[in-house]
């Protein structure tokens, strides 16, 4: 089954195309992260998937329904966490969850939800008295209380401290283990890497990459060799093939290359010859962040080119 079908989706505000001919499909159970710089069209795309905005052209189907015309039965199958926290502050966490649970035909028990988002100890606290991270988790709790088949998360961890982010990730992971389809937008590459098994990169309203984190990482740039040099390293004997990669006042070798076989062989030979300790040697693929930055620097067509 395909949970989401987006075909040539476009949204214009005046003569500004915030989303420009975007197409993709999301199979059931997939976790998709929509990434991109500010103004790339992530939230606009998400709001069309959620039914808040009508497309200028193109089509969207979520669970087989046009979201802008989704009835209450359709909305009962959708969960969402908006970009900013949006809760009435006066009631307690438990009272708030009780009210939202009553809207759905088969809600999760409130006690189960409180455990899932790690808010058991704060159940009787007023929402207005919670920290930003705790309130965000209440947002997530409301988003998933109706057992959604598709969950939209719009920057769910923006503004959270690292511990709160990890807790939110755990809540999402617990949910995805039940087969829920998740579409999330985020500015955090590590979040997308951690949660998503697919990345859709938007720039200027258009998709520039639709891939997995592993493939993006592999395609985004060269591999890296990093080696911290001790004070007594015999730099005079350093092979010429490596000498050009000295960094930080000759305290580090940093080599980025499409093929690292030759420089790595030279480095190992040099280290073996001088009996150097290689405990600090790092050899790895390019970082996902580097790959992401490389990808969003690309455009399908140059700006201003007639279509």
């Amino acid at each position: 089954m395909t949970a989401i079908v987006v075909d040539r989706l476009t949204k214009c505000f005046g003569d500004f195309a915030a989303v420009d001919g975007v197409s993709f499909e999301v199979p059931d159970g997939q976790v998709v992260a929509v990434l991109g710089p500010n103004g790339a069209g992530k939230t606009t795309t998400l709001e069309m998937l959620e039914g808040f905005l009508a497309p200028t052209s193109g089509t969207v189907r979520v669970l087989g329904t046009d979201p802008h015309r989704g009835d209450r039965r359709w909305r009962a199958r959708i969960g969402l966490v908006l970009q900013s926290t949006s809760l009435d502050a006066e009631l307690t966490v438990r009272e708030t969850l009780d009210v939202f649970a009553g809207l759905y035909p088969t809600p999760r028990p409130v006690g189960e939800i409180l455990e899932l988002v790690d808010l058991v100890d704060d159940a009787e606290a007023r929402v207005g008295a919670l920290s930003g991270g705790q309130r965000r988790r209440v947002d997530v709790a409301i988003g998933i209380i109706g057992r959604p088949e598709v969950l939209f998360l719009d920057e769910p961890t923006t503004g959270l401290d690292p511990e709160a982010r990890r807790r939110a990730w755990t809540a999402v992971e617990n949910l995805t283990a039940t087969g829920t389809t998740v579409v999330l937008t985020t500015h955090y590459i590590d979040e997308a890497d951690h949660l998503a098994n697919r990345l859709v990169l938007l720039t200027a309203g258009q998709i520039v990459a639709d891939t997995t984190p592993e493939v993006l990482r592999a395609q985004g740039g060269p591999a890296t060799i990093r080696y911290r040099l001790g004070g007594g390293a015999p730099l005079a004997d350093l092979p010429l093939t490596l000498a050009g990669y000295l960094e930080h006042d000759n305290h580090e070798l940093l080599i980025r290359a499409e093929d690292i076989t030759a420089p790595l062989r030279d480095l190992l030979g040099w280290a073996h010859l001088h009996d150097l300790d290689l405990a600090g040697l790092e050899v790895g693929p390019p970082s996902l962040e580097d790959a992401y930055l490389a990808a969003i620097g690309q455009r399908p067509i140059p700006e201003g080119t007639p279509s």
Partner: protein
Amino acid sequence: MTDTAPATAARMPSVGRLLAAQISYQARLLASGRAITIGVGLPVILLIASHSSQTHTDAADIAGYAAFGLTMTAWNTYGVRLVAAREAGVLKRWRATPLPHWCYFLGRILATVGVAVLAGAATVAAGVLLYGSHLSVSGTLAALVALMLGALAWAATATALTAAIPTIEAAAPTFMLTYFPVIIISSTLGGISEPHWLSTIASYLPAQPLVHALSSSLGHTPGHALLPGRDLVVLAAWSIAGLAAAVATFRWEPHRPTQQRPARALYQPKPDDQSPPSSTMISVGPERLSPRHAATGRVGMPSR
């Protein structure tokens, strides 16, 4: 799918139950705020303060202070809170739930009517208890009708006005500026000397008919109408017009700040666009895809 499917097959909660729950929820929100303390407490304090050397007061005075408490709740408190909820994204959040939109809308208004009637009734009760004002059963029932219709008129009109208020910062000044002049020219807190034309205008606004209807109920004497028909018609007209305008103009979403954005080429839809994917498009390897997508090796179709 595992435990996410039942929503499609299970029965949705009944609309009646949802509406009742929404009224209860909204009433709790309204009653838990400090503003309700003002709506109930301030009129009673003013009633006592303005009659500190008297042992009696008349029905018109009690009606005026009761209308003051009611309108503070149904206009200022309700209206400002509604704008605040909209700008904070609370309304947008509710709009995305399975709750019918009209159910949220009506629940919020009816809860406000209930709490505002309570605020007005508290002042009437204070007048009866402190000054020994006589109140018959028929007068009580008629006063309740006047309070309910008055609260609905003010709350419905406030709902309509929220569409014209762009920010939470503008909400309180807007509601105050549209409130106090009406209250004053309607002689709600005591008679003032005003020209006839101003008094005529006031008789078509929702404050004076409310005070008049309430006063007639509380000070009812045989041979006079419990509820003057003209006042009820004016209040009903404001209720209907307010609801109609609210339905036509109500905003669920916060106002978006206007931004100067760089011009971008406008997308030209190309229904017959069968062009191959762009060479710069990064596509996923087929080994990671569902069978449906594996044939093409792509899960997304680049637009150009």
